[in-house]
């Protein structure tokens, strides 16, 4: 028996080593380690051995089995590894082929910039409110201290729907509405479309976007207005932004100013601002002796043009994706 065992072990080792594939290896396993394999046959003959040899033979068989199993395991790992490598190699790709694209959407550069402006002011405590594009003449003008036949109306040529209804010429109209509906203190922002009967050219469209904000409180001053707008400019144009306030005239603010930021070698006009005229506050039911308010407006399409170097305002409305996808 011992000779047979030794021979078995040698042949098993040899067969394991030369098995190249998982299939061949499995066959080898079956032959030697299977239920009716050669090892099993020898184990079956154990009871027929004389007692004195039985134990030694049994031990030897167990050893051999363990050895064969070990060899087998190791070889199986090697073969599997090699099979997998071959498989992986077959799956090789030319990684320099172009990628496949699923279409990603994006916001329109105008509304994204307006949103950016809104975000900055929201962080500074302004509540964002909604407004309507169709408005009354009363709210759009009279509540902002611009009575009928006031020459200031010349600066805003208006589209009328009826004698009373018009398309709003500025978002400041929303300020007047909100002031009626809330008690001070308040800080409010709004944005949206405005309309003016302007001849269409590179910087004028009859439809355009504006952002408007205001703050009413017991101690609000022009200094606060400067502080808020300078903080805005620094957020939007960088911490080194230089801001300029030049006196100006609006019927609804006194003092009034035009605010500009130094950008790309020019003073970029952002919009207008000032302290709400006491008459505007009075008309909104707010006591101008107790409360003061500042307001600012503009920050719309032309600012977007200057910021991104877009030469013609009409390009925004064409929605040519070759332009929009640049942003």
């Amino acid at each position: 028996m011992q000779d047979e065992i030794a021979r078995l072990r040698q042949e098993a080792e040899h067969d394991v080593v030369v098995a190249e594939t998982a299939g061949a290896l499995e066959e080898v396993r079956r032959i030697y380690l299977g239920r009716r394999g050669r090892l099993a046959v020898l184990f079956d003959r154990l009871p027929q051995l004389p007692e004195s040899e039985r134990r030694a033979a049994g031990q030897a068989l167990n050893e051999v089995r363990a050895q064969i199993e070990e060899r087998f395991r190791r070889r199986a790992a090697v073969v599997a590894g090699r099979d997998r490598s071959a498989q992986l190699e077959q799956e090789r790709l030319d990684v320099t082929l172009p990628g496949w694209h699923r279409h990603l959407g994006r916001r329109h550069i105008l509304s994204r910039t307006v949103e950016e402006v809104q975000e900055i002011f929201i962080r500074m405590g302004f509540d964002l409110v909604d407004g309507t594009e169709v408005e009354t003449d009363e709210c759009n003008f009279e509540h902002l201290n611009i009575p009928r036949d006031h020459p200031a109306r010349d600066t805003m040529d208006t589209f009328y729907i009826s004698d009373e209804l018009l398309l709003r010429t500025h978002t400041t109209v929303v300020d007047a509405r909100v002031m009626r509906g809330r008690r001070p203190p308040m800080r409010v922002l709004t944005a949206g479309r405005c309309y003016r009967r302007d001849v269409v050219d590179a910087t004028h469209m009859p439809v355009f976007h504006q952002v408007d904000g205001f703050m009413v409180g017991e101690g609000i001053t022009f200094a606060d207005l400067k502080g808020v707008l300078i903080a805005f400019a620094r957020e939007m144009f960088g911490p080194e932004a230089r801001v300029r306030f030049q006196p100006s005239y609006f019927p609804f603010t006194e003092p009034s100013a035009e605010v500009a930021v130094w950008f790309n070698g020019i003073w970029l006009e952002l919009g207008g601002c000032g302290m709400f005229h006491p008459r505007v506050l009075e008309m909104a039911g707010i006591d101008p002796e107790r409360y003061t308010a500042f307001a600012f407006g503009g920050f719309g399409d032309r600012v977007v043009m200057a910021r991104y170097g877009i030469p013609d305002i009409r390009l925004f409305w064409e929605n040519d994706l070759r332009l929009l996808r640049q942003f």
Partner: protein
Amino acid sequence: MRVPLSWLREFVPVPEDPAALIDRLAMLGFGHEPVEWVGEEAVLDLEVASNRPDLLSVLGVAREVAAAWEREVTPPAFMLRRSTSRAGAAADVAVEDPEGCPRYTAHVITGVRVGTSPDWMVGRLEASGIRSINNVVDVTNYVMLEQGQPLHAFDLDRLAGARIIVRRARPGERVVTLDGVDRALDPEMLAIADAERAVAVAGVMGGADTEIGASTSRVLLEAAAFHGPQARRTARRLGLRTESSARFERSLDPRGVLDAAHRAAALIAEVAGGQTLAGAIDVYPHPAPPTVITLRLPRIARVLGLEVPEDAVAAILHRLGCRVTRRGRRLTVTVPAGRVDLEREEDLIEEVARHYGYDRIPEAMPVEALQAGRAAAVLEAEAFGRDVLIRGGLDEAVTLSLISPDILDRLGVAADDAARRLVQLQNPLLADHTHLRSMILPGLLDAVRVNLSHRVEDVHLFEIGRVFHAATGGVAHEVEERRALGIAMHGRLARGWNLPAEASDVTFFHLKGLLEELTAELRVGISVEAAAVPWLHPGRSARLLADGAEIGMFGELHPAAAERFDLTGRVHVAEINLEALLRRATLARRFEPLPRYPSVDRDLAVFVPAEMPQAEVRRVIRQAGGPLLETVDLFDVYTGPQAPAGQRSLAYALQFRAPDRTLTAEEADAALSRIHDALRSTLGATPRA
């Protein structure tokens, strides 16, 4: 306002270099055009705000410059010699509308010789943009430019009855104005008339009949104040805008009238000869007292956020021509004639701020601006929705809200559709922009076309914007404004080499899937039904409903409509009432516990008649499946050879789950069996092996 520099220099010393002057004026709030050179003359062109009529004059600008540079103004020197005859004997003035004309003065000058004006006057007029007519008329224009007060010279001998009557025009009355145009007047307008007829449009333009001509020898010189808004209305109605009306419409101060008249009379005598009769006729029934304003010094700091030293405040106001007296912390300020813009305390505060310097006001941060604000709910919901669409692969477009009604014809909207109730503009500027849009889609389709024409491929656009309808119901001109969502998709959703078109072209179901995602994110339950929409492919058009209310339409664009928009290929479109959708939306989120027990999965496939809507089958499955049926997922629609004629197979993956225990296979099988029974008895469905 064009101001020749040399003229300005006559009244106030100015820097040699116009640039320095302009920079300083800009810091005071005067916009300007670049300096022009007329010959060797530098001419400034200043923007004058509508509240500063005093700046429509060289003297007014001079005063502003003097205040800024702390200089004195030297007013024009002149001597007015008068004869002994009285003006009141030679002419007569009656003002029938004192509200329209608060003050009317008339000087009479006899013995003038009408001829050409001296070069220096012509030069200044032309540099200011006014051409020379004759010496008398030129003086009126010259003094208007110098002082800001419009003047008019009448040939006294051509005034019937030597009378001036300031009255409302009569109905049907006409006058030929100086420009030779025969104009119709109406009772809304103020006219200057003689004893017989209207001879001028007050505040706007004189009449041709009474104008100064070569034979004129007696002049009636008018200097008046007219009601600003009325003058503006009149000028607009006549389609005119003159140097006079531009000044009057800003409500000139009646107190400055006589000074200008004296100056003009003296100048006429100088360049045209003649004698001014003694005493002017001055109809001024309600002399306006000077404006006196109390300025509380503490209020300056309250408004500006800066303590301006009291002396500086007084000095600035004084330099601007105000008389200032002080009592404690209050200043009593008498406003000079001409500064009609200074009416209350705030106006003075602005003057102080302007001249003290806006840049000296510090920056402060209001205490309230330290915690974040919130957006209105509808805006948050809108942003949420926009986000979903972008993640879904759509690009945002922005299209005009002004349209022409034929755009609805191009789309093929039915004549009785609500979208036809357009809001019309009273005063459109362009023929293409006469109405407000009632739908987003047409503008979006034009945007698609623009892109296709530039060979941009895969154009998937959406727009969220306002649409407008003329309201139903009795009130005319009421407008309904609401938010809408438009979608237009053309081309592929994914692109790559070897990627087959069937895998990547947009289909009806891609669009539907997007709308399902959108409404799911907004937590709005929806259902979809086939619909007949004239602008959609009749076999591929659907209605979107929430709570049984229609909130939109979507599908494949009707090829005829596509043609009318110059679009080739299939276009998938949607028009959604976003307002109705957002109103039902829920953005608030709460954690829902994850399932604790495993599900049991079963597949089900049945043959049903091909025209039966899938929603029917799903409904029966749901109903029969009961609460244990968690998900119903359609994964196969089969119409191949194994399907009986006129039928198709729908295959669903069903998941059963109990919240409180592990479901057994038997329970699931029992439920499945119930479902099969229901499908068979209700719909006549047969199981597919």
